C-alpha cells in the first residue's frame, strides 16, 4: 500500500472539545465562583458569611414564601387555564391562547410597576377609586408579600400553561375513553387518568417557575423594598450596592439559593424517574373537548380576567401614565400630550445609551445562543461522543440557576481576572445573558435537528464538505425557520433582562430595563412610563416579526 493519511484531530472532536470548554467557562466558572466566594474570606476558608446569612431567618422565610407561593399560584392558574383552553369548549379559545402567553414578553418589572401604581396602599389608583366611589378606605394593598406573590405569579403563568397544555395535546384521548368504558365516571377518569398524566409537565413547569421566583429581583424591588419586605434577590442587590459592597455575604445568599434550587431539581428528577409515562408519542392528538353548557362563558370570563390582570391593565396603565401630564384620578385635571416621550427621547441622557446597549446585547445574545445551541444540539443529536452527557447536563444548569446568582458568580469570577478585563464592560452582561438563555437555544436547535434527516448531512460530507462547511451550507439553512423564531424570542427576552443586569451594569453599560428601574427609584413616574412604552413597542415589533416568520414557515 502507498502513502497513508496523516493522523489529525477530527473536526467532530475539535467541535465537541471546544463546546465543552465554552460551557465550562460560561456555566461552571460562575457557579464555582459563588461557592468559593461564599466560603472564603481574605484570610482563607471562612463560613462567617454563610452563618450570617443562615441567621437572617426573616429574609429566608420571605424568600421561601415568595418562591413557593409564586410557584403554587402560577401552576394553579396556568394549569387551570390550560384545561379551560384545551379541554373545554370555552368560547374564544384561539384568541385567549395567544393572549395568555403574552406575559412571557413583558418583563415582570413593568407589570410590578404598573400594579404598584394600581395597588399601593394610599395613592394606588384602585384604592383612590375605591375611596371615592365605594367609600372603602383600602381596597387592596399590593405592597408586601401578597403583592409580590400576586404579581410574580401573574408574570410566570405562561410557563405552566405552555407545558401543561402541551402535555394535554400530546395525550391520547383513548386513555380517558378506556377509563370511562371500564366504569369510571368523568370526574374519576379525570382524577385518575388525566391528572397523573399531566403531572410531569406540571412539576417540570413548577421547577422552572420556582427557580425564577427564588431569585426574583424586580418584583420584590418594586413591591417589597419600599415597605421593608426583603427577599434574597433584593438582599443581594442591597449588599452589593451599599458601601462598602459585601460580596462575601452576597455570594453566601447566592450559594443558599443555589442549594435550594439544586435540591428541588434533584427531587423533581427523582420523583419523575420512578414514573415514566409513554404518552408523548410525538403525535399530536385532537384533544376531546368537554362540553360544560353555560358554564363555558364563566370559564372564558375567568381566562379574560387573567389576561386583563397580567397584560391589559398593566399595559394600559403604563400607556396612560406615559401620556397624562401628571398622575391624578380627577378627570378634570387630566391632560394628555407627548411631553414625557419628548423628555425621554430628547432630554433624558440615558435613553440612547441604554437603548443602544440593549439592542446590541439583544442581537449578540440571540446570535450567540443560537450558534452555541446549534453546535451543542448537533453534538447531542448527531454524535456518539462520550462528552454528550456532560454537554447536556451542564448546558441545562442555567435552568436551575437564578439569574441574579449567575450575575454574582460572573462578578466574582471576572473582578479578579486581570488578563480578561471584561468586568465593567458590556461583555460581562453578554456572558450573563448568553449563559442564562443557553438552555433555550440548545432545546430549540436539538428539536430542529431531530426533524432533519441525517443523510442530508452525510451527503454533504461525502460530497467533499468538511463538518463546518456542512453545518454552514446544509444544517443552518435547513434549521433556519426554527432558529429565526428562537432568535427573535431570545432578542425580546434579552432586551428586557433585569435581574442579572442590575448587578453587572455600570453607567457606561446601562440597559433599558435598568434605565426604567433608575427612573422608578428616582420617582420620575411619567418618564419611566414613556420609556417602558418604548421598550414594549420594540418588543411588539419583534413579536410581530416572529409571528410572520412562523406563518411563512407553516406556509412553506
Amino acid at each position, binding site marked *: 500500500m502507498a502513502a497513508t493519511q496523516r*493522523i489529525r484531530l477530527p473536526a467532530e472532536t475539535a467541535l465537541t472539545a471546544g463546546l465543552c470548554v465554552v460551557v465550562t467557562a460560561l456555566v461552571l466558572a460562575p457557579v464555582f465562583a459563588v461557592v468559593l466566594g461564599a466560603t472564603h474570606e481574605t484570610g482563607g476558608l471562612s463560613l462567617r458569611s454563610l452563618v450570617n446569612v443562615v441567621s437572617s431567618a426573616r429574609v429566608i422565610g420571605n424568600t421561601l414564601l415568595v418562591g413557593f407561593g409564586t410557584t403554587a399560584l402560577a401552576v394553579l392558574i396556568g394549569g387551570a387555564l390550560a384545561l379551560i383552553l384545551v379541554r373545554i369548549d370555552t368560547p374564544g379559545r384561539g384568541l385567549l391562547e395567544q393572549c395568555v402567553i403574552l406575559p412571557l414578553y413583558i418583563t415582570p418589572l413593568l407589570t410590578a410597576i404598573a400594579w404598584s401604581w394600581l395597588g399601593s396602599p394610599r395613592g394606588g389608583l384602585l384604592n383612590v377609586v375605591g375611596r371615592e366611589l365605594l367609600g372603602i378606605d383600602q381596597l387592596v394593598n399590593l405592597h408586601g408579600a401578597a403583592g409580590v406573590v400576586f404579581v410574580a405569579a401573574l408574570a410566570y403563568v405562561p410557563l405552566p400553561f405552555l407545558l401543561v397544555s402541551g402535555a394535554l395535546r400530546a395525550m391520547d384521548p383513548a386513555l380517558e375513553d378506556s377509563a370511562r368504558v371500564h366504569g369510571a365516571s368523568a370526574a374519576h377518569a379525570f382524577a385518575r387518568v388525566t391528572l397523573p398524566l399531566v403531572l410531569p409537565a406540571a412539576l417540570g413547569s413548577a421547577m422552572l417557575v420556582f427557580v425564577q421566583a427564588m431569585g426574583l429581583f424586580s418584583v420584590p424591588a418594586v413591591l417589597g423594598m419600599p415597605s421593608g419586605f426583603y427577599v434574597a434577590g433584593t438582599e443581594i442587590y442591597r449588599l452589593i450596592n451599599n458601601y462598602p459592597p459585601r460580596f462575601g455575604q452576597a455570594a453566601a445568599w447566592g450559594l443558599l439559593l443555589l442549594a435550594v434550587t439544586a435540591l428541588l431539581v434533584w427531587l423533581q428528577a427523582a420523583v419523575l424517574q420512578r414514573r415514566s409515562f409513554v404518552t408523548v408519542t410525538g403525535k399530536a392528538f385532537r384533544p376531546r373537548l368537554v362540553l360544560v353548557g353555560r358554564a363555558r362563558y364563566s370559564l372564558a370570563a375567568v381566562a379574560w380576567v387573567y389576561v386583563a390582570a397580567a397584560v391589559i391593565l398593566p399595559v394600559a396603565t403604563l400607556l396612560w401614565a406615559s401620556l397624562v401630564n401628571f398622575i391624578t384620578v380627577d378627570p378634570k385635571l387630566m391632560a394628555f400630550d407627548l411631553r414625557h416621550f419628548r423628555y425621554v427621547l430628547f432630554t433624558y441622557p440615558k435613553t440612547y445609551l441604554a437603548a443602544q446597549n440593549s439592542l446590541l446585547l439583544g442581537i449578540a445574545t440571540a446570535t450567540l445562543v443560537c450558534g452555541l445551541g446549534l453546535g451543542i444540539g448537533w453534538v447531542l443529536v448527531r454524535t456518539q461522543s462520550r462528552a454528550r452527557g456532560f454537554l447536556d447536563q451542564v448546558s441545562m444548569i442555567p435552568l436551575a440557576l437564578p439569574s441574579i446568582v449567575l450575575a454574582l458568580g460572573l462578578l466574582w469570577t471576572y473582578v479578579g481576572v486581570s488578563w480578561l478585563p471584561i468586568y465593567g464592560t458590556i461583555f460581562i452582561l453578554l456572558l450573563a445573558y448568553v449563559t442564562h438563555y443557553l438552555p433555550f437555544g440548545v432545546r430549540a436547535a436539538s428539536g430542529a435537528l431531530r426533524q432533519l434527516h441525517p443523510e442530508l448531512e452525510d451527503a454533504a460530507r461525502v460530497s467533499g464538505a468538511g463538518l463546518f462547511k456542512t453545518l454552514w451550507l446544509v444544517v443552518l439553512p435547513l434549521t433556519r425557520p426554527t432558529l429565526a423564531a428562537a432568535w427573535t424570542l431570545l432578542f425580546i427576552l434579552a432586551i428586557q433582562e433585569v435581574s442579572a443586569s442590575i448587578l453587572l451594569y455600570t453607567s457606561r453599560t446601562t440597559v433599558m430595563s435598568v434605565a426604567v428601574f433608575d427612573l422608578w427609584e428616582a420617582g420620575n413616574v411619567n418618564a419611566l412610563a414613556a420609556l417602558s412604552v418604548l421598550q414594549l413597542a420594540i418588543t411588539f415589533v419583534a413579536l410581530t416579526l416572529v409571528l410572520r416568520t412562523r406563518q411563512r414557515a407553516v406556509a412553506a
Partner: protein
Amino acid sequence: MSEVRAAVSVEELVVGYGGVTAVDGVSFTVGVGEHLTLLGPSGCGKTTTLRAIAGLESPRSGRIAIDGVHVYDGAAGVEAPPEDRGLSMVFQSYAIWPHMSVFDNVAFPFRVRGVSREASRTAVERALALVDLAGFGDRPATRLSGGQQQRVALARAVAFESKVVLLDEPLSNLDAQLRVQMRSELSDLRRRLGFTAIYVTHDQEEAFSLSDSIVVMRAGRIEQQGSPADIQGAPRTRFVASFLGMRNIFEAEITPATDGLVEARLADDTVLRARDPWGDGRPGKAAIAFHPSNVDVRKHAGGTAGTVTRVLFGGVTAQIFVSSGPLEICAVTRPQADLAEGRPVTWHVAPEDCLVLRE
C-alpha cells in the same frame, strides 16, 4: 499472479456501537470498474459496512483502502474524514437538499472544493443530461417526483467523476415498475462512465442483474462471496440457499456416488442424487437443498410418492405442497387441474438441481 487493481479493499473490518457489533470481521476487495453488491436481509451490517467505507461510521478495527491509500487503519490510528475520501454516494433517502435548486444540488461537490459555478456548469449539465434531467437545473429540488429525486441523486454522484460510487439501497423507495427501469439505466450509466460501484441491497434480483461480484452478509459476517453465477449455482450455506429462495432444505445422509455426485437419503427414505461443490463427497450427515421451481411434480411418473396437501395460486404459477413421509416438499409449477389438494402424486428433482450444503 496478475490481479485487477483494487479500487477499494476492506480488511477485517469491525464496526460496533455500545454492546452491539454490527460488522464483525468483514474483508473483500473491489476491482477498478467493477460493480460489487453487498446483499443481505435488513440488519446484516451491509449498510454499516458501506457507511464505514464512506467514513460516516467509525470502525472499531480493521483497514479500509481506497485506490491504494489507507483511509482507515485501526492499528495505525488512521481515519480520514468522509470529505477527504474522494467518493460519491447515493443515499436511500436520496438526501436531496431541499433548500437548493437541482443545479446547486449537483454542483455541490464542485462548490465545496472551490470550483466556481461557471466552471462546473459543463460537468453538471452533462450529468443532468445523463440521467435525462437536462433543462431541470433551475427547478427547486422540492418540486420533483420521487423518481426525479433519485435521478438528481445519481447525477450528483457521477458529476464529479469520483472513481468510486457508493449506493445504499438506491432503488428501494421507488415503485416496482420504476425500479426495473432505473436498474437498467444504472447499469448503462456505470458501463458508460466506468466507475467502480459498491451497492447495497436486500433485493437479490437487483444484486444478480447488476453485479460483477456479490458479497452475501448475515449478522455482521460474510456468508459467501463470488460472482452472481457462482453464488446462484452453488450457495455455500443454508442461509444463502434459503435467501436465494431454496425453500426445500432437509437433513440427509450422504454417501458417495459416481460421476462426482453423491447420494442423499432423506427422512422419507427418498434417495436423491446431488452435487456436492463444498464437500469432497465424504459420507455423513449434511443438508440437501433444492429450489421449488426445480421440483417435478406429476400425477403418475417415476419418483417418490406423496400427497398434495395445499395449493396456493399466484397468477401464472402455483405453489404446491406435497407431503412425503415426515417431509413437506414445496414445488412451483404452472397451475394444473389434476394437482388438487388430496391427490396422490410423485415428485422428483434432477441431480444438477440438487445441492449438498455442508454448513
